[in-house]
């Protein structure tokens, strides 16, 4: 039994040896053909590699190819002449290094695009949430007409909501400004190449945000002068940022027609400004009117300043002419609204929003001082006291003269 097993084992070993011997017989031609095939495949893999992981695998494959074929380098040198086995690996490694650099740049860019996409998504979703809150508040304001206190509270909340939105958009613009101002041409070019993958790029987003602002201005329910002044300042900031990075953004994200993209945004900014102005001047006119100050119609900062001066000038003239108590009341009413509301509550915003300058406010203050002097009613008491004084003096003189003549007659 043992002899049979031993014989079978020997047979198996011999058979295996024969098979391996057959396999071991190789054609030199085939070896170099296989080498060239593997080399060509590696070159193609390097060219098509899109990730660091793929390139790491290729690097291992290059090393493996070199190890596997090193013993056949003479055959390969003969086959490749004038190319050499060594040069083949130099070429492979140079191409690989170049690909690693390219992929690294692409991966960095992809990360940047992903980060940008994520930022834009986050901005968009937050903005949509705010828009929804604003719409809900508007709806509630409309429904709460019966309850003034509740409506006032809702309007306050609505205005705060808009302020918060403005601040959020301003921060986003600030981020855009710092990011794109610091980018060089090469970085922008790289982003341009990948920007097509973005569903909504920053230029699209800016256009959408401006459109939302325009809609908000068209449905300016419950908003008052300070809200429009604040919106005017927001518009100013938008224009400032756009002027600084608009060209870079459009050439980066709208490379096909950046001029048209810029013109579109400029047009939207202009429409937004117009809708703010319409609301702002109307609300200012109403605010003055509600305080019994009827200003001439105005639709610009200059015309508003002129309307205030016209009002003061004509009231001043009336005071000079009549110097009545009514005129003085007109002065006091204007003075009170000017100081308590316009200067105290709105002054800073007016300056920031380019509605009135510091110098223009000071000029109105000076005119008010003159108006006060003329409007203050002049009293008759002084005149009466003078008459009384003169009469008393005359009476005393007469009395003295009478006494003097009496004493002369006695003596």
């Amino acid at each position, binding site marked *: 039994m043992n002899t049979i097993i031993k014989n079978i084992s020997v047979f198996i070993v011999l058979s295996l040896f024969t098979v391996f*011997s*057959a*396999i*071991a*017989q*190789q*054609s*030199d*031609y*085939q070896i*170099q053909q296989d080498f060239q095939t593997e080399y060509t495949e590696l070159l193609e893999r390097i060219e098509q590699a899109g990730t660091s992981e793929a390139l790491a695998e290729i690097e291992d494959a290059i090393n493996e190819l070199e190890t596997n074929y090193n013993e056949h380098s*003479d*055959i390969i040198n*003969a*086959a490749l002449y004038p190319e050499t086995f060594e040069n083949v690996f130099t070429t492979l490694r140079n191409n690989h290094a170049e690909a690693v650099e390219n992929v690294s740049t692409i991966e960095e860019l992809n990360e940047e695009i992903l980060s940008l996409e994520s930022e834009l998504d986050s901005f968009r979703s937050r903005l949509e949430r705010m828009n929804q809150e604003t719409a809900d508040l508007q709806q509630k304001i409309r429904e709460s007409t019966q309850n003034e206190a509740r409506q006032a509270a809702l309007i306050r909340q609505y205005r705060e909501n808009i302020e918060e939105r403005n601040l959020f958009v301003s921060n986003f613009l600030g981020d855009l400004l710092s990011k794109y101002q610091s980018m060089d041409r090469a970085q922008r070019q790289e982003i341009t190449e990948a920007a097509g993958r973005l569903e909504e790029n920053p230029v699209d987003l800016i256009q959408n945000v401006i459109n939302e602002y325009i809609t908000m201005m068209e449905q300016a329910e419950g908003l008052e002068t300070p809200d429009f002044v604040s919106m005017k300042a927001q518009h100013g900031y938008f224009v400032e940022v756009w002027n600084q990075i608009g060209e870079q953004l459009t050439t980066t994200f709208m490379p096909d027609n950046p001029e048209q993209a810029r013109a579109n945004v400029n047009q939207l900014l202009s429409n937004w400004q117009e809708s703010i102005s319409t609301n702002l001047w109307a609300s200012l006119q109403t605010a003055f009117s509600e305080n019994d100050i009827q200003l001439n119609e105005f639709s610009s900062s200059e015309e508003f300043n002129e309307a205030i001066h016209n009002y003061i000038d004509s009231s001043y003239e009336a005071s000079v002419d009549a110097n009545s108590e009514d005129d003085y009341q007109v002065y006091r009413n204007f003075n009170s609204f000017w100081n308590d509301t316009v200067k105290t509550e709105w002054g800073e915003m007016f300056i920031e929003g380019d509605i009135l300058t510091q110098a223009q406010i000071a000029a109105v203050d000076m005119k008010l001082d003159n108006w006060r002097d003329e409007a203050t009613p002049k009293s008759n008491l002084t005149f009466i006291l003078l008459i009384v004084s003169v009469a008393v003096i005359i009476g005393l003189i007469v009395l003295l003269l009478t006494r003097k003549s009496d004493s002369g007659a006695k003596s």
Partner: protein
Amino acid sequence: MIGTVSCGSSLVIENVDYSQPLESVLTPNSENVVHDQRYAIKFSVSPILEAEGVESVNEIRLIRNAAGYYFVTASGFQNVYVFAPGEGELELENSIDFLEDNLQEPAFNQRSSYIELVDLSDGETYRLDQDGIIEEETE
């Protein structure tokens, strides 16, 4: 070592090594002509096909040994043909028979002092020179 012998007007260079490091695998065109651009030789394989009794062949395997003889064969051939180059001709020097079983997947390898013929189908190897199969010395 290369030596030269000058004799009258003739100049002979000795110890020339014609060996081709790798076999050439050539595909005949429609006229059964093969052209090895690398080693600069072009000839018709029709006489070889006729000798083998076949009409066509996909590939011809060709190698030259150090002495300058060309060895030609192909899959399915019974022989390896050894040619000596002449003036515009290849003259058959030897025809090495493999009668037992035709060469199924023959391949030539250049070795230091001989041409190795491998039949890749069964791993059988033969040492050849222009005179035929070299018997391996038993150790």
